[in-house]
């Protein structure tokens, strides 16, 4: 059975990097792993080699690992086209749908569609059979919850029956005054031509709805299975604990298995307490400028105090999050990326678990 690891969290917290580093950790543990990244920063994409080919896994060369690491960058337009081809009843309809302007707008501009594409791709990777482990990054969002709920919401929205009454108010006898009023209002707001285009689009896309629904059920089974592990990625600088607890509650309610939180850019405690350090401040050597020396000393003292304050803050955050979630918290220190992205991933991987 393929192990799935889903990295959730808000934008800008280091989700993509964490997902890639988890991939390295699994490859080190001898697994065949694939990582799906979403909008990786250029340097990471370069390092992983995903820049050139969207949506197709490419092999990442890692030093000294017994497993293998593949990486791909989610291409939502291409994934939407794949979804259309998979579920459309005929190739001709698929072609028309792919060329339709409203359909083209789905993958980039329908709220929640990015999440839908991510789950479609995740399903494809998890059922492919080539990998022991599939690690996925999730789209940037306001809420970590979006990934859990958006795909189903969008699958439902792409069913014309939902909006049928808006498009053909007169044909059905049971349509009430309210619906008729609504339909005429919508026609006036959007204009006749746009409503005709939309009617055609929703008519076509409804042909996918059975397929989408069945796939949705299969994805749900996968995402609720015991092999699917959820990890929350939070930034030590702004852990947003309210959202963390909301996310945990939603996972629990859904019966999904939460594995723990990664706290990125966490400050490790100083090896020696600040007071002991400050007792060791050296005296100014002869020939060194007094003002410059005083300035350097004050910078050092301030750095020590800042470091200690951050370390205390991050330790307290980790403790609170562990208590709140009843699951482990893995603090990951900030790593120097100058040595190269792959080296940096290796360093981060050392702080991460394999589930």
């Amino acid at each position, binding site marked *: 059975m393929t192990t799935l690891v889903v990295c959730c969290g808000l*934008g800008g917290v280091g989700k993509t990097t964490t997902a890639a580093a988890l991939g390295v950790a699994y490859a080190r543990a001898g697994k065949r792993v694939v990582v799906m990244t979403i909008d990786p920063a250029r340097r990471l994409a370069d390092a992983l080699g995903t820049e050139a080919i969207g949506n197709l896994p490419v092999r990442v060369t890692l030093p000294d690992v017994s497993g293998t690491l593949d990486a791909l960058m989610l291409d939502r337009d291409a994934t939407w086209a794949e979804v259309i081809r998979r579920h459309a009843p005929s190739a001709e309809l698929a072609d028309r749908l792919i060329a339709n302007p409203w359909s083209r707008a789905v993958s980039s*501009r329908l*709220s929640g569609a990015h999440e839908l594409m991510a789950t479609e791709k995740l399903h494809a990777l998890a059922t492919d059979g080539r990998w022991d482990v599939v690690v996925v990054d999730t789209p940037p969002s306001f809420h970590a919850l979006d990934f859990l709920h958006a795909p189903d919401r969008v699958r439902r929205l792409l069913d014309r029956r939902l909006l049928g009454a*808006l498009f053909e108010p007169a044909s059905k006898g049971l349509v009430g005054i309210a619906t008729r009023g609504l339909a005429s209002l919508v026609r006036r707001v959007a*204009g006749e031509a746009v409503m005709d285009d939309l009617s055609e689009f929703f008519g076509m896309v409804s042909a996918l709805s059975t397929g989408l629904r069945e796939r949705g059920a299969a994805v749900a089974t996968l995402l609720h299975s015991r092999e699917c592990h959820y990890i929350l990625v939070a930034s030590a600088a702004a852990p947003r604990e309210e959202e963390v607890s909301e996310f945990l509650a939603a996972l629990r309610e859904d019966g999904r298995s939460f594995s723990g939180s990664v706290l990125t850019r966490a400050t490790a405690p100083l090896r020696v307490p600040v007071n*002991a350090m400050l007792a*060791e401040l*050296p005296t100014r*050597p002869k020939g060194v400028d007094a003002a410059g020396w005083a300035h350097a000393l004050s910078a050092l003292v301030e750095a020590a105090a800042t470091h200690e304050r951050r370390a205390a803050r991050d330790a307290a955050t980790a403790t609170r999050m562990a208590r709140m979630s009843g699951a482990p918290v893995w603090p990951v220190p900030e790593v120097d990326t100058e040595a190269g992205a792959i080296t940096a991933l290796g360093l981060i991987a050392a702080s991460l678990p394999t589930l």
Partner: protein
Amino acid sequence: MSRLHRKLLVVTGKGGVGRSTLCAALGLAAARAGKRAICVELSGQHAVAKTLGLPHATYEPQRVAPGLDHRTFTAADCLADFAQRKLHLPAVSNWLITSKPMATFLDAVPGLHDLLQLGKLENMIAEPLPGEPTWDLTILDAHATGHGLTLLAAARAMRETARVGPFYELAGIIERFLSDPEVTGFVVVTLPEALPVHEALELSNALAVDHAAPAAVLVNRCAREWPDDAAADALRDALAARPEPAAQALAALADEESTRSGHQRDAREVLRLGLEKVTPLRVHTVELPDLTDPTKLDPIVDILVKTLMVGGV
């Protein structure tokens, strides 16, 4: 402000760089410089509201500080406004607009959320109805999710999708409004680190191609610099020469600080050189401190007043 003579500042930047925090700070700075300003968020977001200490963000503008208001848009509110304004539909139809099927329609039509909210933004700034409140400066928190890199590309795409009718016209109005550099300025927020700077340059380039170079780049969370001089080197040497664990720990800390500071300097240099390539004009680059307490924005507001508001984006 001559630099902030524009009516709208669109604040953009990758996730987590401090966009919402700096929107709030820009609003406070504008108000302090004597402008009537308003911070606007989209899709019911309330990060700026929270930073400004507002417990509930609403569609109706709320006063948050002397001279500064705040509001958050939702697609449904903006649709009601659109229906009334463009189609002269009576407010009675409001119950239809807020109905469940209408909400479904709004959610199901790709790009409609953005279209209606940006349309309202344009109305509010460029075509206020008699009796409606007006502001000298609007500051938009343009969240990175959803629309494309530059908002402008989103407006163009909406026009191409709609082809004809009210949505098409609205998209055209938005596009013209956003692409007028006299009216709309973009502010890019970044951090003094290699990757964020790289992304900020990509964004600035895309803006320069689509619209105009950014009005300003804000480098958020700059840490105190480790002095790069002989005395600081002497301090590190003195620490390294001592065997006590405490001295060694201090030496390690000094090394770390010096490396971090070096990266920060490098990042700023990359940004400076990169922006020179983006545009021959000078882009105002403002460095803002990493705050110990990010709820106390005063140090940042002071800098923004001095650099951007006095004399002007």
